[in-house]
């Protein structure tokens, strides 16, 4: 057992000859906000896909709270307490906002199809509780007025917020956010950053965040891991990362004497 809540050791995958992610190690302690950054195509989303089981790891191990999860199926990983949002929003468009959130808490429910058909007290209690939980989370994300709206009709920024809301409803131990601020305007971004920080601090949630907006990442993350070509090139606090030579090279290219 390790001291880390999420402990990935040497995970990797290659697609044909392309090593999308190689020997990546991520150690995340309990509580706090961690950033995962890197230039386009560095393998950040691939890393998320490996952690959440969308791709299966070709090498390495992942432990979540002492439980080995890299051999599990995606739904079992979600049950173990690792949930994510998607870079290209994947909401259940036809369902209402409330239903999108409620469906995620089905994971923690214990009623079976028989309870459903007969509407037993257990079923009623759980459904009421699910709705309460969902409404509470919608308030946290500021979406409570759109509860009955179809998810596909929400504005873009709200869809991203709803994804976070839905992921929270699975009661994760670690929340993975894949570019939550992509496509948002500056004021929306600022607001979102505050929300994410708030989730982290007041819920005691552990969050791993992929983001391209450096300002946002540097502002709210405590530690940052930098990827390039599927490999970790730097780990450290925002200040350390900003002055790291390798990171600057990865983003801006090598310095050449002229």
């Amino acid at each position, binding site marked *: 057992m390790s001291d880390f809540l999420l402990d990935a050791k040497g995970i990797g995958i290659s697609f044909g000859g392309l090593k999308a992610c190689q020997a990546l190690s991520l150690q995340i302690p309990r509580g706090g906000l961690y950033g995962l950054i890197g230039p386009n195509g560095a393998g950040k989303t691939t890393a998320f896909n490996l952690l*959440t089981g*969308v791709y299966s790891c070709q090498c390495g191990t992942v432990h979540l709270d002492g439980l080995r999860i890299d051999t599990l*199926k995606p*739904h079992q990983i*979600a*049950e173990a307490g690792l*949930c*994510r949002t*998607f870079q290209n929003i*994947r909401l*259940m*468009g*036809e*369902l209402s906002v409330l*239903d999108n959130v*409620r*469906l*995620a*808490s*089905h994971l*923690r*429910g214990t009623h079976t*199809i028989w309870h*459903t*058909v007969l*509407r*037993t*007290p257990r079923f*009623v*209690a*759980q*459904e*009421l*509780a*699910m709705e*309460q*939980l969902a409404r*509470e*989370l919608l308030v*946290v*994300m*500021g979406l409570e*007025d759109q509860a*009955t709206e179809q998810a596909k009709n929400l*504005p873009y920024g709200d869809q991203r917020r709803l994804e976070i809301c*839905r*992921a*929270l409803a*699975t*009661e994760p131990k670690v929340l993975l956010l894949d570019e939550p601020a992509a496509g948002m305007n500056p004021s*929306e971004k600022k*607001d979102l950053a*505050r*929300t994410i*920080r*708030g989730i*982290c*601090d*007041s*819920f005691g949630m552990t969050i791993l965040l992929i983001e391209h907006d450096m300002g946002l990442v540097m502002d709210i993350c405590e530690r940052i891991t930098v990827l390039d070509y599927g490999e970790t090139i730097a780990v450290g606090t925002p200040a350390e990362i900003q002055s790291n030579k390798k990171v600057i090279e990865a983003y801006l290219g090598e310095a050449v004497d002229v």
Partner: protein
Amino acid sequence: MKTLAQHIAEVSPSRAFRPALMLVPWLACLAVALLIHYAAPMAVNDYWVNVMRRMGVFIVAAVSLNIVNGYTGQFSMGHAGFMAIGAYIGAAVTYYGSLLAHGSTNDPAFYTQGVLLMLAGILAAGCVAAGAGLIVGLPSLRLHGDYLAIVTLGFGEIIRVLLELTSTQIYDAKEVTLGALATFPLNGPVGFERIPGYASLFWIYLFAAITCLIAFRVKMCSSGRAFLSIREDEIAARSMGINLTKYKVRAFVLAAFFGGVAGALYAHTGVNPSPTDAGFARSFDIIIMVVLGGLGSISGSVLAAIILIALPEALRDLQQYRLIVYALLLIGMMLLRPQGLFGVKEVWDLFRRKPQPKDKDPHGPARFASAAGTTGGAR
């Protein structure tokens, strides 16, 4: 953040447990069935009563197929196969049961042995069809879209061919032995004959109402949301902890069970179930009802079943042109409302008024009132 378990602990038992309310929907089903049974014959002639019996059967079939095609979005084209299995099982239980019990199939009264045999047959039909659904579903639901459609289409055809290979029916009560029954005397390609028509309007609409109630309850709960989320986005559903295979198979088995029930009811409406009932033509009929009504809409399926059974009858005056008109009407419907009559909504959703949103900055600050300790920039 409070967990679901904490929320559940907070729900007061008096809100959760209301024994009287638990019975009401089932009694409502009974009332609907009784109403239709006694009111319909007063309103229409015998011919239309028979049409209404067919309608009831197809309401059960369409609503059950909606669980697979509508809720989970898996395209099953073999529903007639499950219906045929149900029809033959139900018919065999009633027919051979009657022969064994009292030597003939004459037993037309309301609450007697014959009806009990029919109910046992319906239950058996549902269970056998559900078993068949499990056998077909487990391997094939790992497939997607067109591939699943082809497998299920093949399943229906297999059932049709198997039914054609069954041996001749036994008409003499003395010849009905265990050994004779083991050869499946279901009358091969000719079709199973002389099945007493015990399925009155009452029984058919009782089962139709119960099917709708169960399908509706399944839709409006966490399992139902799991089904619908599979239709919307499998990857996202999986990442939210939904076991895709388990839920797809569950939907398939549930649909097969009620498909079997529909078949068994059909066999008791005075028709001779024949192997062609398992063919793809019948499957398409049911699919058309589901698509026309709206994928995922129970009331849509009910309405579509009623319209599509009544339409050819109402168009009878047009004689040989009626099927052309029928087809044109279908094409017109699909052009005007490609999402079906109601989409995923129910009839009553269309009349519900939208709640007016309160005045509020749409991107206002997030709130953490419910959580302990509001720090970290949250106002």
